[in-house]
Each structure stands twice: as C-alpha cells, then as structure tokens.
C-alpha cells in the first residue's frame, strides 16, 4: 500500500529539510512541470480525480481550469489554505510540519499550471511551529532556485510568501481567507464571482487546501492512472489522510486509500474504543459534518458513500463519541464554537447560532422544555444551505440536526430529568 504523502515523514515528526528532501527525490516534479504546458498539467490533475481535501471535495483540476489563461493580469495568485481550524482536524499540521518542501513543491507545480506569479501559504495562527518550519523551508527553496523570479533558470517567476492568521475559524472559508489576506475583515465574499475570476486583490486566484497541494508532485511525477490506482473507490483519486480523536485507544492520523470502511478505520487503525466504552457515533469529517452511528460502520470512507449515509467526508478526520459522554454537552460545545466563530455578516448565522447555543445550554442545565427541541429543529432548517451567506452555519447545523435525529432520547432525558444524566 503506497503512502505518497506521508512516506517521507519521520516517525518523530521532525521536519524534512531540503537536502534530505532532494535526496529522497524531492523537487523532481518541478523540473518536469516546467517542461510541460500549463494546460497539460491542469488536464493531468483533472484526470487524476484529485478532489479538494479541505472538505468540499471538488475536482481540483476542474477548479484550476476556471482560471483565465488569456488576457493581461497584474498578478495571478495561488493560496495554500492552512487555516486548519475545523475542530478535530489536524492533518494539514502533520503535512506542514513533517514535510514542508512537499507543500512548496506542490505549490510550484500548481502555480505553473495556472501561471500564477505570487503565492501565499496561509497558516493558522496557533500553528507557530508549522510557521517556523515553513519559513525555513521557503528560505531554502528560494536559495535553491525553486522559487523566485527565474525558477531553475526557465524564466518562470513565482514568489511564495508565508502569512500567519490571527485566528478565526471563518478564515478557512476561502473567500474570507482572501479578505483576511488583504487586511480586511474576514467576512466571506459573494460567489459568483469565484476567486478564479476575482480573488486576492481582485486578481485571478486559486485557493487549495494543504493536503490537496501536497498531492500535486506525486501526480506530476507518476501520472493520473497511478494516482487513481491508489484509491479503492473509482472517481476519488489518491490516498486520504484519515484521523480519529475522542476516546479511542490510538487517536491519530493514517494515510489510507479512499474507500476503506469506517469500521476498519476505527477498529484497526484507531485501535477501537477504550476499554469499558462503547461507540455511540462519530462526526466523520470534522465538527461540521453529520453524526454517523453504529449502523453506518460498514460504509466506505469516500465522498459519495459518506454523503449517501447522510453526512460528509469533510476533512476525513473523525471525532468519536462514546456512550459515557453526553451528546448534548458535545453538541453544546460545538455550537458554542460555531457561535463564537460566526463572522457576524449574515442574519441567520449571527443571530441563530447564539440562540441554539443558549437553548442547548438551557437543556444541559436541566432547564429545557420540549418546545426547545422544536426551536432547535427549526434552526437546523433556518440555517440550512442557501439560507445563509456562506457554509459556516449550515455546517454548524450538521452535528445538531443529526444529534436530534440519532440521540433525541438523550435530549428528552435531559428535559425529563431536569439534569444531565452523564454528570
């Protein structure tokens, strides 16, 4: 089983710097890419079925193809989205800290494919170590001629910069990220226009997730067919870094083919539940995905299968809920997070999330009434997709609506017993 993304990451997690990286075959894809036509690379990535690893799962090559290749532009930008603030998600951190040059190499190939001349790596504010590592790797890459105004003396120009966030969840939304990069409030932007047309500073821009970009060198080096072959699911190319947190025996991250089952992930890789605890459910792809429960354990972990089960693959890093943890408390904790991270731009999210949080707190405190469940249910519709300006609130409603579906008796128990029975 091939693990292209993580095979070179040391067990102790210490970063791989340029000499070692190059000795392991690093930066080969840059030479190859610069000899290709940009459109050829776009086509190759499209065929590879690489899908956005930030959670949306959109075909990466297709996304690139919307960047205008004709016409005069002051700049074209490539931005790596490393604002990994999704609760329960820590996969990009591993990739940045463990192998920063893989990211840079992926960005050079991507930048060339869309003919970007400027790039930013946008890193979550709390990832201070990752930022240090990237800063050092960037300096090395400039030094080695992989970045700058004349890359490998081919005349191609790509300058890549590091930008650390000051810490808002909404910066993970690509257009809010762009506003933040411009020094503005991190409010999402209206789409259309998409960033490919009018992105950073109004110029054509691609924003890709860190994990997505790290796949690019391997696709360029080994081809689309090889990449598709890594996956167990036709249509979802490559491997995925899956993860698990919660009360499992071995929380962690594993690079696995698309299409492994949830059960395999939980039992083989995460080592199963801690002794004395039973699996109650999980959020399969971060906090903004719907709960999956026992009946779903045999579904395959790929975009279509998880969607068919009523959730989203998301970031592929799951949060596991056990039977000794209060599901109301867990959802309250999540809604507290989402309410706090709302940018305050659109009405349903700004006003609705604090409202749901307050109701959940009321239920958790034993003051809940049955009508509160109706109001919660109402909010899951009110903040549904299309009703809000961006995907934050619909994402926030995912764990709530599924908890109301699967754990309704636990909510009712709180209300009937006027307390939290888990405390």
């Amino acid at each position, binding site marked *: 089983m091939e693990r292209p993304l993580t095979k070179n990451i040391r067990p102790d997690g210490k970063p791989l710097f340029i000499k070692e990286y190059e000795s392991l075959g690093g930066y080969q894809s840059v030479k190859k890419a610069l000899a290709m036509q940009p459109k050829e690379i776009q086509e190759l990535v499209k065929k590879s079925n690489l899908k956005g690893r930030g959670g949306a799962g959109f075909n990466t090559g297709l996304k690139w193809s919307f960047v205008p290749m004709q016409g005069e532009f002051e700049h074209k930008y490539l931005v790596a989205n490393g604002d990994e603030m999704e609760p329960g998600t820590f996969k990009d951190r591993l990739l940045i800290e463990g192998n920063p040059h893989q990211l840079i190499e992926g960005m050079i190939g991507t930048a060339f494919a869309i003919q970007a001349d400027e790039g930013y790596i946008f890193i979550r504010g709390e990832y201070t170590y990752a930022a240090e590592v990237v800063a050092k790797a960037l300096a090395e890459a400039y030094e080695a001629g992989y970045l700058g105004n004349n890359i490998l003396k081919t005349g191609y120009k790509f300058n890549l910069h590091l930008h650390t966030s000051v810490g808002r969840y909404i910066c993970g939304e690509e257009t809010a990220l762009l506003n933040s990069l411009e020094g503005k409030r991190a409010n999402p*932007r209206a789409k259309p226009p998409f960033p490919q047309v*009018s992105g950073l500073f109004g110029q054509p821009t691609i924003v890709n997730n860190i994990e997505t970009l790290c796949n690019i060198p391997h696709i360029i080096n080994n081809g689309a067919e090889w990449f598709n072959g890594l996956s167990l699911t036709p249509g979802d190319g490559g491997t995925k870094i899956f993860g698990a947190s919660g009360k499992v025996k071995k929380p962690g991250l594993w690079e696995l083919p698309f299409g492994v089952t949830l059960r395999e992930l939980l039992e083989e890789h995460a080592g199963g539940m801690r002794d004395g605890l039973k699996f109650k459910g999980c959020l399969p792809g971060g906090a903004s995905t719907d709960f999956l429960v026992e009946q779903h354990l045999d579904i395959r972990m790929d975009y279509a299968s998880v969607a068919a089960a009523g959730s989203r693959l998301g970031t592929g890093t799951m949060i596991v809920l056990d039977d000794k943890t209060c599901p109301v408390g867990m959802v309250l904790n999540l809604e507290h997070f989402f309410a706090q*991270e709302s940018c305050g731009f659109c*009405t349903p999210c700004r*006003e609705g999330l604090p409202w749901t949080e307050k109701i959940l707190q009321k239920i958790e405190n034993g003051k809940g009434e049955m009508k509160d469940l109706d109001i919660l249910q109402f909010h899951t519709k009110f903040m549904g997709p299309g*009703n*809000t300006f961006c995907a934050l609130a619909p994402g926030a409603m995912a764990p709530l609506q599924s908890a109301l579906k699967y754990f309704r008796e636990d909510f009712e128990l709180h209300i009937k017993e006027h307390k939290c029975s888990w405390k």
Partner: protein
Amino acid sequence: MAKIKINGKELEVDPNKNLLEASISAGFDVPYFCWHPKLGSIGSCRQCAVVKYRDENDKVGRVVMSCMEPASEGSIISTEAPQAKEFRANVIEALMTNHPHDCPVCDEGGECHLQDMTVMSGHTNRRFEFEKRTHNNQYLGPFINHEMNRCIQCYRCVRYYRDYAGGDDLNVFSSRNRVYFGRASEGVLESEFSGNLVEVCPTGVFTDKTLKKHHTRKWDLTTAPSICVHCSVGCNTIAGERYGTVRRIYSRYNEQVNGYFLCDRGRFGYEFVNSDQRITKYIIPGSTEGVSKSAAFDFISKSIKGKKVIGVGSPRASLETNFALKQFVGSENFSVGLSKRDYQLAKLAVDTLINGSVKSPSLKDVEKSESVFVLGEDVTQTAPMLALAIRQAIKNLVKPKADKAGIPQWNDAPVREIIQSAHGPLHIAAPVATRLDDVATTTYFSAPENIARLGYAVAHFINTKLVLPSGLTDEVKTLAEKIANDLLSSDKPLIVSGVHCKSSEVIKAASDVATALKSAGKSVSLSYTFEESNSVGVTMLDGKPLEELFDEAKSSKAGVLVIVENDLYRRLGKEKIDAYLSQFEQIIVLDHNETETTAKATVVLPVGTFSEADGTFINQEGRAQRFYQVFVPETDTPESWRRIAELGNATEKPFIENSFFDFTSSVANSLPQFKGIANIAPPPDFKVLGQKVARESIRYSGRTAMKANINIHELKPVNDIDSALSFTMEGYHGEAPSALTTSYWSPGWNSAQAINKYQIEVGGALHGGDPGLRLIEPTVDKESYFQTIPEAFKISAKGLTTVPVYRIFGSEELSTKSPAIIERSGNAFIGLHPADAKRAELKNDDKLEISIGGQLATVNVIIMNELAEGLAGVSAGYKGVNPEMSEVTFKK
C-alpha cells in the same frame, strides 16, 4: 430588456438590475435592509428572500435572496410563496432577538424602516427568551446620536460612510453577534456627510441629535418641500416644524440634484430659524423695544416721502425678493448686494456658462463623469454635495473591469473587490489642501495665479493652438500634460472651478480647458461653484455692485437705503461699510436674524427665513428651484418680497403683485432669462381630487389642544394663497406632483424608504420628472477662449498675500447661527507655510492679531504644509475677518 415573471405577472425589466429592484419597481413589497439603491447589494441581511423557479414546470423552487440575483431573461420568482414568507418572518425574528423594542423612546419610531419591515414580514410572537446583548454607545459629536443596542447589523452605515462617502473613522468592529458599528474611540465623526447616516440607518442607531433636543414624531411635523440655503448647490430638502420652530431637515429626493443625500451643513444648519437672534419686532428710531406694524409703516412712509431710495438685494434672498426690491427702487438704484470683486467673479462665471459652449452639469451629470480636474476649489468646503458626487464620478472609469468579469454593477462587494482602490483621474489644483486629496491622482498647491497658469497649460496640451504660459517649470509642464492626457482619455471629462479663490483668471482658465475639451470632441461639462444659495439668481437678475451703488448714492444724495437679507459687513471691510452707511438718513433693513448691519439700521423690519417663505433659488448649475413656506409663524415675519410690497404700498409705488405666484409670474414674464420659472411647480389653484396638498400628515396629533391655553376654540386654518399646499392636515395625502412632495409616505412605508414608491423605478427619476428648471444651456458650438494668462505669483514685499480658506462649518453665514454648527466651527485662523511661520516665530495654535486692509482680527495659527510660501490662508466668513482678503500683516 429581459422578460421576467414576478408573482405570475409578466414584466419587461432592465437585466442590469437585480430581482429585488425589479420587484420593488414593479410595485411589489419585498422587505429589505442591507440593500440601498445607492449602495447596491451585499446579501447580508437575508430579508429579501423570494422563491425562484427553474422554469414553468418547477413548482417547488428554491429560496434565494432577490438582491443577489440578476433580473435575467426568463427569471420566474414569487415574493408571496409560503417558503419565502416563512423565511422572511424567521429572519426578522432573528434580527429582533437583540433589538431592544424601545420604540416609544426611540427617535426613529414612526418612521423606522425596521418597524415597517417587521410588520411587512409578519413576525409577531417572540420565541427568544434569553438575555439580549448590549453595547456601550459613543459620543459622535453634535450631529449624530448613537444607540448601538438598536442595531440590526445591516452594514449600511459603514458601507455608506466609508465606501460611498469616503470617510474612514466609522467602522465595524468585533464579530459574531457582538459586531459593533462606531469609531475606534469616542469622538466627532469626521465626514462632512455623516448626517446621512440618520436616513441610511434602517433603525434608531444613528439619529439626528439636533432633532433629539426638540424631538417630534414624523407624523406631528408640518412639512414642506424646501431648498437648502447653505450653499449654491441647491439640495432639495423637506423642512419640518412644530410649535413654531423648525425641528429638522430631511433630504428630499431629486435624482438630478442631491439624490438621497445632504451634507451636514445643509442638514444641521437650520437652527438659525429658531435662533434667539431672530428679529421679530418693528424697530424705528427711538424705539429699541419695537413698535406696532402700523407705527413702523407710518414712520417709513413719512420719512421716505420725496427721498431718493436705493436698495441692496442679496444672494441669499429669493429671486422674487430681489426682483421686488429692484422694482421698488428701480434698476438704476439696485445693487445685487455683492462687492465689486465678488460680483465680477460671479458674473464672469455665470456669463461663461450662458455664452460658452460647455454644459453646466447637474450633480447627476457629475456622478456620470469619468475624469475630473478641479481648479482653485476645496469643493467639500464650498459645495459639499458636489464633492460627494465627484467621489462617485471617479469610480466610473474603473467600473468596466467588473463588467468584463461578469460582475453586475449592483453586486457591490465584488465590484469593490475587483476594482480595489483604483479610480479614474482626479486632478486638484488649489491654494490649500482639500478634502478630496485622499482620492486625487495629482495635487498642485499654489497661488491662484499659478493655478490659472496650470489651467492654461492644460488647455494648451489639449489644443496646442492655445498659448502655453511662458516660464513654467518642467514639473508644471509635465503635470499639465498628464492632466491633459487624462482628460482626453475619457469621454466625459468634468472641469470644476468657482469663485472661492477670488480669481477671475482661475475661472477663465477652467473655461478654456473645458472649451478645448469640447473642441476635441469630448462630452465635457463645466461646473462652477458660487458662494450662496441664490448667487446665480441675483447675478442673472443683474444690478450694481455695492461700491458702485454707494458711490453714486453719494453724488445723487440718496437719503434712504433699503437692505434686504444682507449683512454688508460680510461683503466689504468694516471701515468702508461704516463710511457708506453713514451717508444715509434712513437705513431700512429687512432681515430675519440680527447682524452687524441690522445693528446699524434705523428701521428694522422682521421677515421670514426660508421656512416662512415661498421663493425661487437658482443653483450653481443654473437650475431654478422652488421652496415653500413650511408653517404659519406666530411672529409677524412674512416673506421679504411681501414685506417689500408692503413698503411699496405704503409709499407712492404700490405693487400690482399680491401673492407669490404674482411675483414669480412677473419675474418670468418680464425677464427672458427667467422664462418658465412660474411653471416649475403647480400654481396655487392646483388641486388633487379637489384638494390642496396637505403639509401635515393624516395622523397629525394635538391640533385641537395646541393653542387651547390661549383660546379653547380651534382657530380656522390659514389659507395659503401662495401655493398649492394647505397648512394643515386637511388636503390631499397621496403622491402629489414631485415639486409638491411634503413628505414620503405610502401604506406600510413610514420611513424615508417610502421614496421607492415615488420613483418610476427605484433609484431613478420621480414620477412626472424631477422638479426644477435649467435656465442655462450652452449656446451651440461657439468656441471662444479667454487666453488671458496671468503673471506667475510673486511673493509680496509688503506682507503675505491672502487666500481665503473655506470651512464647511464656519464660513457660511446662516448655518453659523445654529448651535450644532457653531460647535464644529472653531476659531478664525490664519494658515501659514512652515517657512513663513518659522520666520515669524509662530507655531500651531498660537493666537495672533492680524490686519487685513487695516481691519484687525484675532486668529489661531495653523501651519499648512501644502500652502505656498508667501501666501496666508485666512478663514473666510469668520467673525471679524475682513472679507476683502487683501494683503495681511501681523505682529506676534
């Protein structure tokens, strides 16, 4: 045009609009907050949800925000579908979770867009049962009251203040449900256009602080259409009165002039009407306490008899008043009330527009311009709303960038994102730094002579047959060439100049630049600013400058001087005016507020301000506009033209004119330059459904009790013989002809947003056309150039050369009698170049006694880095400062 369907009704609409605009224009009520016709859409409030269907077969549809969807061909929407209505009710419910529901004590109550939209959206029962979030409020200066708890976070305030008006000290802070709209720290809002927040805010966060001091509900105001008296732009206003005092000024929509907005001087300068310096008594010699009207007129008719009478009119008095005075004293004895220099400047500018080939633009035309060259004006201080229009104009050349990317112009945020901070050319040449410099492409600060020379150089580079001034530095030549190229590279250049730097050469150079552009085939316009509300009107009426009238009076031994609404001490130096006035036996002054001139009068006759008068002003564009008496004053303060008619009737020169319509018809019929002004508004016998148009709302309260302490019997309403308006609530309350709009109201629309219902399409022209009549149009294609190039400025050996420096708050006469404006005016000042200041050992804020033409004034020193050496920028219009602005000397 695109064919669309709204609620089953087939419509043809402009595909460049969005579905919200299309729906409202078609008369459907869709609630909204964040969208504003001038600010476009951002999609934040989610209030304007409708259901959009894929095609005729789609019966389910999906909820979309109508403000974010183009009105493209084949769109099918329902504003009434249950999902849409339910969602809209839910949105308002969410907005209301934190709103304090303090309507009874909120100044916005009764004209609150939030109230209207809440009712329209159908939210009644409150499910939210938790504590509301609260905020601290800020002190924002004398104009605006801040009450953040009421905020519904529509973001309109910051979008208006920052993106539209160019301010940067109001912002949005924090996030989630704590977002806060205010300043980084408490303090006076810096924008000259902050008052529009009152109308832009859909609820009571930003309210009129001057109204708060004498608060009255909208429905209790007696209101009439008016014209702003505080500069030459002539913004349309609605003035509201209760219990004999004017309570507030609201903007009156006129697509051609001020659109939705006003400047702060126009909005908050009105309180001179209520001033304790109001003249309400008849003063004759020997009586400082006042006499009866008949005693005053007896005295006048006796003392006037057989004497030669001369009259001084005023650029701040209506055309009818000036006309009446001119009739009363005779053309040869009439002065326009301006000094020789000021009259020459005004006449030069007016004549240039009348005889030239270049069009004088309306503010709407200004907004459509693409490149701008300003000569000699700090427009924000002298014609504020023109400056706001220029801010919009410079966006035009960069807007196509959005079109190319497929972004509709109404989609405000994406348009701004793709444009970023880019803007079209704006070149400013002025004696001092201006409030448009922040968006200027280039600035050039120098003496008026040098500004004119730059102008002539620009004209030369547009049309090389014109003379290039000799002795220009390479730097100035390069600048001139760049300005010329920028103006030539756009189809619609705009040249702005005016009388305020007191230089005829600047006015002429501006005209030459505009004419050169015209001959280069450009659709150019030329906008001149003037000092006062009717400067253009009185100049077009024609008369003598003050010096000429007074010098002739000396030789002809005229014994009686009649001055109408004019403080002569604001026209010429004190010594001169004192000497002039001393030659008359009687000085009869008609004015509404005490001035230095009324103090010198032997007879003072009280007259009305704009709010007690009907009249016509001609604005800087050449547009004649009607204003109406707002209320019947308790005091005996009629219109000046009526007072002059009384004067005439008390002497041997009785007037045939009796009512306002008689006067305005006489002006129109006897003077060809004013042809048509009688018809700019319906005549006094005009009626809708047999009724006059009511000044008071149908909900006007307390009328039977208002004067019950004086007389229990309700007084018979006064009949307005001058206009088609009635003084009370009796009358027509629906939509009247645009010139007669006393307030905006439509069922369900109690706030100013009801204006939607008065427009042909939202944000467009008013039903029946916007009021007013342009009296000045360019004569066809006659190219004429001045080419009178002045010598370059030389530093005078005698002292510093004065240039007047204008302040929006402080330089204008009437507004500086209003408390809120006084608070913002500051002291008189002298601006000095750092080198001149150093030489005189002066620093910022030093107190200094200056002498202009021997007239002393105490001023504060301001170091002005942009001011040229050898110049002194002296605050114009401030108390004590010699208006003649000749050379200045000072001793520390």
